[in-house]
């Protein structure tokens, strides 16, 4: 960190005033929002000071405090382990058959930490700076600074647990540079970093299960939050094997339920990834922040047909050696790429961004791929009206490093590609296309990770906190573990210091109401008895979202999408067909619940995107670009967090704005030209 | 059969791996024994005198510290104990394995396992039957199948007369095939059970050891019956 604290006592920007109002008629303006526990003082001191100020819970009392943690990914697993170690009485939930299968397991590239092991000028401040800048100045600086600060502790913790990070010959930890940053601060375990980190957290949690402090409920899906006297006091969950609707009461509830990228149907998320937990909380009063901020990853394996159930990410590292191109002429698109001469190829990223070339940030690489495909110059099979794919060509790299050199670096990726596509990427160029990968939006939380419902905390990808409008590579794992191991345990105690709260019983009216809601919904799904499967509605929703709320969003498109989603919602509730019973393992029933919530979320995402008439990070509004087609931010109007309050069934959502004021970093427009 | 509770007070000696170790050690004792036994059998090629001399000598090992046939009895007790341990562990593991999958697959393919590894149990049972028969034949009753006499005191004659009969030779050759297969996997398995195959290379070597042992032992044992049948030994 810099010797003198970089933060200023006076703000570096003024509060925004929105002039445009594209979403009028779709929402109700609400009161401005401020983080009630936002820290003040020099930025480098804020977290230390806060840890000290937050009240402690007497160890003897902890056993009497019941903590529900929904989700066992990095954020939830780490929190369950840590809270269990501290002696709280933890109940942990996940919908998978084992906590170890949470989708954090799929992360490939790595995890950032400001260790500066390479002595290349990294520091807490630089990681903080890069994250805020990468997020296009749409995140809260205190939160991000804290994230950067605890990042180093994460690595220590993981190594102590036995996470087998890559090492150098001397036995010390290795780092690589990732996602276009100029320092090497990414720790990794080959292409399976998420898996190794999650197994570390999982094992720590299982140790607490054995110790009796954590009880795990696997194959359980949370379907409702219980709010009593304004405080979250438990959840209603369905045992996915027996179908039993269970009530679990507690002093505090933590949601670590991951991202909602599956609203697009096709994404790199797991089949079961859902918004249900977050959405149910939203309907009970938790604000949903910046729901439209979606990250679309440029290097995924393209869609091969209508049957496709999910998309597979190919590590970004491929862009270090592969060259991206499409044919200059449409007529060449169905030719064997090897027969297209050099002069007929358009290496469009190298052409448009000569200095960054193929290594431009994710959102730019994705959008340009979409542009060339929309021009009709895409390659691969026709999907709908277009070919959706561009070449990622390793011919030059193979000539330079030899086939063995490439194999050494990427063989698992090349094998995976060959398995999925049936093509040999050593011989013909790979085809790639962007896919939804991560959502920066999520439930609104304050500096303590507490949502707008007291006693309901939200961690990991499920909250909106740290990445602004765009997330840097290798920073989601960092955030999940930061939240779970170090932040939440230190903030939740300030809330729990007032506990144990008054005991409530299962016949409390609020509990009965929550339970009844769940039971009625289940019965409803089974009784509509229409003609279409939940999956078919989900696919249709995905098409709408991808088309109108995907890589490029426009006012007209979004309005159209909102209408289409409303129609889809009506069709869903009248034409859904779910077979089987409520009291058994019923995967169609599970799916129906998730799709119902995705549909409502999709509408809110479009409204949020419509309101934000600027381009920032992963959100690109066609109406807000520079002359040469680059994203254009409007800080004076939109330097705020859009926190949406549920407007009731049939009502409009209420928009609360939390202004983003910086004291340590000055806002700048991004430029990669 | 999964259990919802965690085991308390676990002991290494009460594990399946302890049973496996018992099998490996007793199996290695057998291997040592069959190697020595085979070496002795090959004495048949040196003629009647040398063979009988050797059979007699076994009984004199360790004299005068040990009484006559003392060492032989020690060997016998050790072997018997090893057999009890080996068979008892095999039975225990066999029963566990059949309880581990009570509902069988409708279709099941074997990909990497060798035939010998999959027939250890039935092969072992064959060997057990053979050992009983073999002991009755040569050690306890000493039946000369060509004459019908029992209690012969000339081991060499007993051997030659037995293997002159073709079906006796066949029984022994089949038993040796069973032994070869048992050792082919057993040798490797014992090395692995003892934990000496922690690399791909050492594993390959252990497999080679299995092959060599199987060929040497079964081959070595088979020479005498075959050569007797064809009259080379008479």
């Amino acid at each position, binding site marked *: 960190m810099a010797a003198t604290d970089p933060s200023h006592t006076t703000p570096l920007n003024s509060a925004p005033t929105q002039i445009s109002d594209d979403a009028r008629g779709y929402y109700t303006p609400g009161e401005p929002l401020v983080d009630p526990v936002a820290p003040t003082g020099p930025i480098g001191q804020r977290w230390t000071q806060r840890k000290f100020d937050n009240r402690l819970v007497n160890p003897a009392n902890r056993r009497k405090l019941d903590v529900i943690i929904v989700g066992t990914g990095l954020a939830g697993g780490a929190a369950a382990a840590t809270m269990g170690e501290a002696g709280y009485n933890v109940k942990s939930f996940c919908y998978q058959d084992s906590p170890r299968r949470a989708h954090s397991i799929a992360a490939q590239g790595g995890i950032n930490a400001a260790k500066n092991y390479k002595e290349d000028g990294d520091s807490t401040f630089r990681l903080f700076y890069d994250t805020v800048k990468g997020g296009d100045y749409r995140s809260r600086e205190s939160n991000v600074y804290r994230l950067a600060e605890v990042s180093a502790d994460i690595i220590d913790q993981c190594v102590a647990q036995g996470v087998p990070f890559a090492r150098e010959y001397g036995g010390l930890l290795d780092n690589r540079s990732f996602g276009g940053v100029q320092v090497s601060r990414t720790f990794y375990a080959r292409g399976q970093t998420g898996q190794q980190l999650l197994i570390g957290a999982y094992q720590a949690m299982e140790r607490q299960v054995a110790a009796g402090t954590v009880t795990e409920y696997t194959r359980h899906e949370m379907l409702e939050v219980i709010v009593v006297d304004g405080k979250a006091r438990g959840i209603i969950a369905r045992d996915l094997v027996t179908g039993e609707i269970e009530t679990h009461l507690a002093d505090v509830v933590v949601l670590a339920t991951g991202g909602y990228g599956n609203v697009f149907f096709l994404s790199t998320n797991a089949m079961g990834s859902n918004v249900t937990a977050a959405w149910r909380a939203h309907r009970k009063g938790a604000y949903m922040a910046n729901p439209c901020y979606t990250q679309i990853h440029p290097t995924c394996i393209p869609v091969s047909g209508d049957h496709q159930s999910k998309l597979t990410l190919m590590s970004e590292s491929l862009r270090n050696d592969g060259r991206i191109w499409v044919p200059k002429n449409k007529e060449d698109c169905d030719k064997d790429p090897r027969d297209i001469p050099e002069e007929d190829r358009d290496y469009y990223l190298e052409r448009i961004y000569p200095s960054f070339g193929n290594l431009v940030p994710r959102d730019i690489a994705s959008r340009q791929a979409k542009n060339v495909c929309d021009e009709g110059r895409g390659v691969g099979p026709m999907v709908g009206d277009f070919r959706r794919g561009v070449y990622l060509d390793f011919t030059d790299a193979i000539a330079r490093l030899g086939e063995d050199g490439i194999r050494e670096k990427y063989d698992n990726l090349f094998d995976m590609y060959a398995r999925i596509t049936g093509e040999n990427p050593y011989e013909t160029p790979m085809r790639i296309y962007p896919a939804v990968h991560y959502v920066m939006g999520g439930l609104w939380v304050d500096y303590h990770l507490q949502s707008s419902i007291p006693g309901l905390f939200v961690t990991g990808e499920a909250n909106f906190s740290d990445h602004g409008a765009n997330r840097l590579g290798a920073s989601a794992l960092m955030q999940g573990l930061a939240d779970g191991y170090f932040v939440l345990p230190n903030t939740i105690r300030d809330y729990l210091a007032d506990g144990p709260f008054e005991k409530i019983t299962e016949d409390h009216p609020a509990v009965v109401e929550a339970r009844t809601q769940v039971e009625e919904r289940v019965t409803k799904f089974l009784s509509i008895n229409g003609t279409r499967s939940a999956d078919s509605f989900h696919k249709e929703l995905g098409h709408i979202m991808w088309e109108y709320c995907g890589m490029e969003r426009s006012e007209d498109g979004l309005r159209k999408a909102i209408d289409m989603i409303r129609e889809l919602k009506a069709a869903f509730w009248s034409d859904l067909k779910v077979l089987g019973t409520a009291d058994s393992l019923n995967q169609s029933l599970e799916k129906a619940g998730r799709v119902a919530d995705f549909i409502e979320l999709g509408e809110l995402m479009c409204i949020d995107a419509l309101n934000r008439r600027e381009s920032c990070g992963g959100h690109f509004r066609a109406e807000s670009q520079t002359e040469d087609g680059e994203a254009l931010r409007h800080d004076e109007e939109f330097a705020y967090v859009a926190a949406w309050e549920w407007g009731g069934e049939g009502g409009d959502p209420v928009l609360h704005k939390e202004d983003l004021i910086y004291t340590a970093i000055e806002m700048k427009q991004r430029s990669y030209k | 059969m999964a259990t919802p509770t965690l085991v308390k007070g676990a002991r290494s000696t009460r594990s399946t791996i302890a049973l496996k170790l018992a099998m490996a050690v007793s199996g290695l004792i057998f291997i040592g024994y069959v190697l020595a036994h085979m070496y002795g059998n090959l004495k048949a090629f040196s003629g009647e005198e040398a063979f009988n001399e050797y059979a007699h000598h076994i009984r004199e090992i360790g004299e005068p510290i040990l009484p006559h046939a003392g060492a032989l009895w020690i060997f016998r007790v050790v072997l018997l104990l090893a057999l009890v341990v080996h068979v008892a562990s095999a039975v225990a593991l066999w029963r*566990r394995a059949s309880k581990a999958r009570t509902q069988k697959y409708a279709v099941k393919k074997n990909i990497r396992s060798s035939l010998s590894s999959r027939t250890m149990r039935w092969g072992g049972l064959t060997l057990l039957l053979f050992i009983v028969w073999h002991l009755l034949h040569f050690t306890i009753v000493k039946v000369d199948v060509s004459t019908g006499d029992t209690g012969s005191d000339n081991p060499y004659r007993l051997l030659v007369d037995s293997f002159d009969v073709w079906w006796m030779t066949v029984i022994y050759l089949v038993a040796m095939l069973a032994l070869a297969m048992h050792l082919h996997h057993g040798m490797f398995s014992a090395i692995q059970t003892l934990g000496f195959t922690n690399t791909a290379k050492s594993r390959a070597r252990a497999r080679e050891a299995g092959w060599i042992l199987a060929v040497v032992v079964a081959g070595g044992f088979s020479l005498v019956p075959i050569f007797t049948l064809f009259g080379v030994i008479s």
Partner: protein
Amino acid sequence: MDLTLNIWRQPDAVTHGALHTYQLAGISEDMSFLEMLDVLNEQLNAAGEDPVAFDSDCREGICGTCSLMINGQAHGPEVTTTCQLHMRSFKDGDTITVEPWRADAFPVLKDLVTDRSAFDRIIQSGGYISANTGSAPEANSVPAPRDKAMRAFNVATCIGCGACVAACPNGSASLFMGAKITHLGELPQGQPERYTRVVDMVAQHDAEGFGGCTNIGECTAACPKEIPLDVISQLNKDLRTAMKQGR
């Protein structure tokens, strides 16, 4: 392509199941095996028949949820997970038999879905390094030899799918357990608990009703992560050492 599917149907854990035959037409070879089952399920749903329950989540070969016995091979004919298996590994007109993992320690819950929580309990019994949050020393204070760290990583890639158990004629979970023992045992941080860990994990493994290993090696042929047989040797060795220490 057109296929005949023999699929194990079982309404719940207690009711007896049986193989049912379904005909499926027009399957593309670009589909994954599970997408083929998705198509079947759409078809069943439309016909008013209960769709086939099967487990999957990440569908990219890393979470270990998918778990099908396909024509007598765990995860099917390729060295990969069920979700990464594609229909181009089959031919038009093929008959494919699909069964759940079979092991009494993995009871069937419905159709092709099994309960693998026994694996979680094996980990609970000792498959961890005790390091409370916040108590860790600086990460580089203890160097770990690179070759050992590599071996630890290679076996830590186990996804806990249970294919090794499904393929093993003895229903043994030794490969899974050996992978964890080796992962933690190769790292300096794993040493203090090394020999209690192995005893506790093996005891839990046995109590769950998994069979003993006979070093047959079917597990390694089925393992989508190619965990090698030497982890079982390592497991045996560590247990033998624990025995010597009188544990």
